[in-house]
């Protein structure tokens, strides 16, 4: 059997346990205090009883003592000490006797062993001392004595006749009653304590269940919210108007608001998407319309002057350029549409393939390409997407550098992410351009379509990645891409396979 650390226990265990422990502790402490007090009370009660009985005998005995009425004394001793209730639940009388001032027995509850008229046998020195003292000071005395057979309360009361002492009554009550009655009281008290403990723990279990159920619901609710799932959210039912109830209410309010916000965001994203689509459509229309206008003019002029060879020579290249531009726009759009295609997983070597394309792009320009690639065949990546992203960024970097400069390509696998950086020391990007860098059809170059970075952004997003730009005009730019762990985990798995 193993025990876990109490700190790891559930509240539904700890709370009832604590309540039970507290109830039991209090009940036992109070019970023990009561038992001790009860024991004192019973002892006092017994002493008082011993004194009362002895006084009762002494009160009626004086005449009999004076008249040497041994039988009368014996009878009053016997009747005073006889059990009064039918259960025989009277204090057990160990001894009762009447002595005259000389210490002779006038009456004894055990007459066989203590014949009347004889000196008291078996009295111990302490008892003799008390007897003498009572005879001298003429005042009752009570003490508790112990023998090997058990303790007893001994009361010694003088028998008085007109102020003078004519004898003493000695009464011994067994102290066993103290123990038996204390035990009985203790049994009752501890029975109550156990009953209280049971009730307390049941109550504790009930209270903790009541407290912990909303807490558990809150925990699972928070878990759901943490996963960003607002659809399966069930409001926690508040049971009480206490702090937990308030917490539950605020949690419900919070999740409600979060869900509302999420919905609002989705609506916003949808309308943004539609707006973007509109912008694309407008962009396409505009971009296609620009060359179309010139081309239609050219065709109009050529139709008016069908035989003019010089015009044909002049306008055909113009028509070709216009159509080429339209083709480029359409191809860009098609490339964007292709991003919807299924992922094409492959080994990391495909990233290395981009290097040749870029070297060809650089041609004989004085551009230094710093290549540091950690992604190799042992890593698996989303080849199609990643190749296009890397190619786009490197082409942009080469264009930004112009005739002379440096372009750096670095990749790293760290933790659960791929880190790809493309850096150049080209013209840099002005701040107002940075804000629209990833918008479609946004370009600073006359020949650009404004689709390259937009497509790059879309691809990175599709891979659940992030893209960052750092740039300073005149000094260069740095594009940093992080593709999250899932891709790596999957790549590692299939790499191992």
């Amino acid at each position: 059997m193993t025990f876990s650390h109490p700190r790891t226990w559930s509240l539904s265990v700890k709370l009832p346990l604590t309540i039970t422990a507290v109830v039991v502790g209090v009940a036992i402490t109070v019970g023990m205090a009561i038992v001790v007090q009860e024991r004192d009370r019973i002892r006092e009660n017994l002493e008082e009883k011993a004194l009362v009985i002895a006084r009762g005998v002494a009160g009626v005995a004086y005449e009999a003592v004076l008249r040497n009425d041994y039988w009368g004394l014996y009878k009053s001793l016997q009747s005073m000490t006889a059990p009064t209730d039918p259960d025989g639940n009277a204090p057990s009388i160990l001894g009762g006797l009447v002595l005259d001032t000389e210490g002779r027995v006038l009456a004894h509850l055990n007459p066989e062993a203590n014949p009347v008229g004889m000196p008291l046998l078996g009295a111990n020195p302490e008892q003799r001392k008390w007897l003498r003292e009572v005879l001298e000071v003429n005042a009752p005395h009570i003490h508790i004595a112990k023998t090997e057979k058990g303790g007893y309360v001994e009361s010694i009361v003088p028998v008085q006749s007109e102020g003078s002492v004519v004898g003493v009554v000695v009464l011994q009550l067994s102290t066993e009653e103290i123990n038996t009655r204390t035990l009985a009281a203790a049994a009752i008290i501890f029975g109550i304590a156990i009953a209280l403990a049971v009730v307390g723990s049941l109550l504790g279990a009930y209270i903790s269940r009541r407290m912990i159920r909303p807490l558990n619901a809150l925990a699972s609710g928070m878990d759901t919210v943490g996963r960003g799932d607002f659809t399966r959210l069930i409001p926690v039912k508040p049971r009480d108007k206490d702090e937990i109830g308030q917490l539950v209410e605020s949690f419900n309010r919070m999740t409600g608001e979060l869900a509302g916000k999420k919905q609002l965001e989705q609506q916003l994203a949808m309308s943004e998407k539609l707006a973007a689509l509109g912008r694309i459509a407008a962009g396409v229309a505009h971009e296609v319309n620009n060359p179309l206008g010139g081309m239609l003019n050219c065709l109009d002029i050529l139709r008016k002057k069908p035989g003019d060879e010089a015009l044909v020579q002049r306008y055909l290249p113009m028509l070709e350029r216009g159509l080429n531009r339209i083709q480029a726009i359409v191809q860009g759009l098609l490339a964007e549409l292709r991003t919807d295609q299924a992922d094409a997983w492959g080994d990391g070597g495909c990233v290395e393939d981009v290097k040749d394309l870029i070297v060809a792009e650089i041609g004989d320009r004085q551009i230094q390409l710093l290549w540091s690639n950690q992604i190799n065949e042992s890593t698996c990546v989303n080849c199609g997407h990643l190749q296009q992203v890397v190619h786009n960024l490197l082409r942009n970097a080469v264009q930004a550098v112009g005739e002379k400069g440096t372009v750096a390509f670095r990749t790293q696998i760290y933790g659960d992410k791929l880190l790809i950086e493309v850096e150049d020391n080209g013209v840099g990007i002005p701040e107002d351009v940075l804000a629209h860098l990833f918008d479609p059809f946004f370009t600073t170059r006359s020949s650009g379509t404004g689709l390259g970075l937009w497509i790059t952004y879309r691809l990175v997003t599709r891979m659940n990645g992030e893209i960052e730009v750092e740039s300073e005009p005149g000094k260069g730019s740095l594009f940093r891409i992080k593709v999250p762990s899932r891709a790596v985990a999957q790549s590692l798995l299939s790499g191992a396979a």
Partner: protein
Amino acid sequence: MAGLVTRRRTLALLGASMLARPLWAAEEERPVRFGLTAVVVRENLQFFERWRHYLEQRIGRPVRFVQRRSYREIMGLLQTGEIDFAWICGYPYVQKREPEFLELMAVPVFMGEPLYSSYIIVHRDNHATSLPDLKGKVFAYSDPDSNSGYLVPRYLLTGTGALPDSFYRLTFFTYNHAETVEAVANRVADGGAVDSYVWEFMAKTRPAVTERTKIIIRSQKFGFPPLVMRSGADQELKRRMQAAILGMREDIDGRALLGELSLDSFSQANPALFDSIRAVAQRMIEGGKP
């Protein structure tokens, strides 16, 4: 209104009937007082209640039993006329009275004869078999005026040559034969003298007590403690009471009461029945030599 008148008339009638009662009724209604002593076992109050009712029916007057601790008190009450009847012991009866104020009314018949004796008893475990064995011990008498409980045991002791006043270490009176048995049974006294009738009666009713005692001496027989009446009492009352007592053996109720007392009957007594007690008392006065 009618109701009021009726009530007034009823009240008037009631007053008239009270006035109409004869004056002698007051005398008739005064209870007849009957003294009881230690010769009978007096604990059974219900029995005396029944006996009282029985006597009331026979004599036509209320009866009250009067109990006193000692014979002497009952004798005093007889002398002063506070009681008219009493059940006393033979020893007080034979004591000289000047002038005589007692008349014998009846004597109980016990086990076929109007006689009883004195038992000297000791505790069952006591090895004593005779009076000399009790020398220096504690002895219980019943009453200084008792025949069986005082006179006879002292007389028996003088018969052994001992002096009764110094023979025992201690003596005491229980003023009740039954309690003498208890004192011996509880070993408060080593020996005791008891009325044979009381001991036999207790042997039937409270055997647990008598079983703890044993009889070592049975004395000669004496006249059973008699029922007496005051000479100065109303003659008619004396006649009716004596007739009631003597007639108890004649009817069922009386016989039942006698049965409870363990007696055969109450019979007419001859004062000569108590001559033996008188003789013992005389010898004790003369010096205790038999």
